[in-house]
């Protein structure tokens, strides 16, 4: 103890373990091609490194700066603000490099040439992003600040793409040729994900309430829903196409009501299939989790059973139902891609077109917005759940 007080003050260097992992990934990525250059859309291209895109000292300087930013993110002893700024600077820097490299490579080559992001770039983006999120999570920001971070992120991303700075990157070239199709796919994707969620709530919530009240129904109903959940999604489509096709052909009115073997109808049904279990079981769990003495007091004061349910039990179960909504929404945003396989529309259309043509850029045009949508929806609902859980405390604080 004494030696400590007498020794010279020395700054202790500590590392954040996840930060180190991200930094190692990022550092390794610096020595992997950041983009692939292709003379045309289909042929496999050649890798381009940072040090080949920027000749001589400039290239190595950029590598050094990016490396320094990776290391900064991993140093726990630094103030969190510094670490976040480093990670964000790295993120923006990487995007700037991508746009710059793409533009200069395209300018020097014949029409039809392509510049696609390659492994090095993806890994760098991921490493910076994870480092930033890791520090953010440790900050324990207020709810309000987290809403602002989310909104800010969405705005910045939209601005980056809208600016046209990345227009020479292959994915954006694919987008440029298909703007109308992209917007339609976006709308369809939202309809698929939110529509199936809405239908699942309308059907599943009352079933959950029913199971809460009729104990004997729980096992069979949950068992059946569980079974539905285990059917592989591709197999499900395989079964539905002939069944709904037959119904549409042979049942009068069915086709008029939208029943069809392919298109948006079977896609919605399939998504609904996977949404029911989470909605039903979380409704049930939420209701059974309400402290028994609360329901008991409510009945003891003269509420009817319906009043106990509507005024006490359901409001108290709501946070758990909201977590089900989060699970289902994120799950369905991802699953809706498969709708592209049966003409249901959405971003899956690009994915399957891309797979058919072995056009990686087109596949990315379908997957990247899907991932972004899932992240935004998931984070938004996380924040909503937190808001619901902490609102009473907040009210007293104000």
């Amino acid at each position, binding site marked *: 103890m004494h030696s400590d007080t007498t020794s010279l003050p020395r700054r202790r260097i500590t590392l954040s373990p996840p930060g180190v992992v991200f930094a190692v990934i990022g550092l390794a990525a610096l020595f992997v091609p950041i983009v692939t250059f292709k003379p045309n859309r289909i042929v496999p291209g050649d890798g381009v490194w940072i040090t080949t895109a920027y000749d001589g000292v400039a290239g190595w300087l950029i590598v050094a700066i990016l490396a320094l930013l990776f290391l900064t993110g991993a140093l726990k002893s630094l103030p969190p603000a510094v670490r976040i700024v480093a990670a964000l600077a790295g993120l923006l820097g990487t995007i700037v490099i991508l746009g710059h490299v793409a533009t200069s490579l395209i300018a020097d080559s014949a029409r039809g040439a392509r510049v696609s992001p390659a492994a090095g770039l993806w890994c760098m983006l991921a490493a910076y992003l994870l480092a930033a999120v890791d520090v953010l999570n440790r900050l324990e920001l207020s709810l309000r600040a987290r809403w602002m971070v989310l909104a800010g992120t969405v705005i910045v991303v939209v601005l980056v793409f809208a600016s046209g700075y990345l227009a020479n990157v292959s994915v954006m070239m694919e987008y440029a040729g298909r703007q109308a199709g992209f917007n339609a796919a976006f709308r369809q994707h939202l309809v698929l994900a939110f529509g199936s969620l809405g239908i699942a709530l309308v059907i599943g919530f009352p079933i959950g309430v029913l199971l809460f009240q009729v104990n004997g129904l729980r096992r069979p109903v949950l068992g059946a829903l569980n079974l539905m959940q285990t059917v592989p999604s591709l197999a499900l489509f395989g079964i539905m196409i002939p069944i709904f096709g037959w119904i549409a052909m042979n049942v009068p009115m069915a086709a008029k009501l939208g029943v069809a073997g392919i298109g948006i109808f079977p896609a919605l049904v399939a998504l609904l299939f996977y949404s029911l279990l989470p909605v039903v079981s979380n409704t049930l769990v939420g209701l059974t989790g309400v*402290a028994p*003495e*609360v329901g*008991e*007091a*409510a*009945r*003891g*004061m*003269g*509420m*009817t059973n319906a*009043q106990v349910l509507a005024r*006490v039990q359901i*409001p*108290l179960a709501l946070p758990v139902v909201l977590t089900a909504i989060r699970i289902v929404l994120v799950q369905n945003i991802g699953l809706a891609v498969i709708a592209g396989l049966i003409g249901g529309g959405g971003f899956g259309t690009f994915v399957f077109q891309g797979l058919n043509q072995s056009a990686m850029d087109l596949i990315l045009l379908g997957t990247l917005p899907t991932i972004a949508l899932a992240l935004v929806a998931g984070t938004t609902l996380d924040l909503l759940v937190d808001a619901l859980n902490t609102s*009473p*405390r907040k*009210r*007293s604080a104000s």
Partner: protein
Amino acid sequence: MIQIENLTKRYGSTEVVRGVSLRVRQGEIAALVGTSGSGKTTLLRMINRLVEPTEGRVLIDGEDASGIQPHLLRRRIGYAIQGHGLFPHRTVGQNIATVPHLLNWSNREIDARVDELLHLFQLDPAQFRDRMPHELSGGQQQRVGVARALAARPEVLLMDEPFGALDPVIRAKAQADLLELQKKLGTTLVIVTHDMEEAIALGDHIAVMDKGRLLQYGTPKDLLTQPADDFVESLIGSAERPFRLLSLTTVADLAEQGEATGATIARTTNLRDALAECLWRGVDVLPLDGGGVVTLNALRTSGRGLAETQGEVN
């Protein structure tokens, strides 16, 4: 008034409450005591039909409870339980307003009533009305629970171990407050407890239950002087009995002619406190309000006499 007539509850073949009859007069407190599982809660909940009796009936002010729709019956009867059962998603004010709200009182009446009750329970309305239950201490939650039960001015109040979750110090204060309030409002009160001390402190009558049967129903004095059987006696705890008995008699009963120096004590002081006062002052005789004295000797003899009668009963 509550009349319980030959009330029985069976679950399958087990009788949880067996043929209990008792009567609680208007404005009286009846305490139900007994070991865990003796059927106290079940008996209490049959009064407001949270549990439907298998046999027998309950009359409230002469009206058969089975003839009233359960939820309407319950709006007329206050109900407070251990751990208070406050609605965690509603403010204190909204919690208290529950029954008036169900009874469609006007907003103005409800607001006035909520503030009145908060005052009555020594909670400043401006400070507490809009708090959430988890922002209250255990004692405050318990008071809000009772306030909520009393909101619609019920003539009858049922309480199931309302003080069970409180620590002993607050508990004594909560009991005293309840007693004062009950006297003021004239509410008929049935309170379940498994603490004999609490039953004696609160009950005008005490019902001792064991294995679903009512063993004895009488005043605290009855139970102390004439316990119906060994079980009742063991519940009371024989060692402390003379001392408890002293606290049931006042000095007025032992007053003698005479003079004494020092501050006078009230004629309603109980013998236990008077004895403590003598020992504390180190005197043999205490002057009473309005003349007369009580002697240490008389207090001692009285205590010993009571102890001896106990011995004979055994």
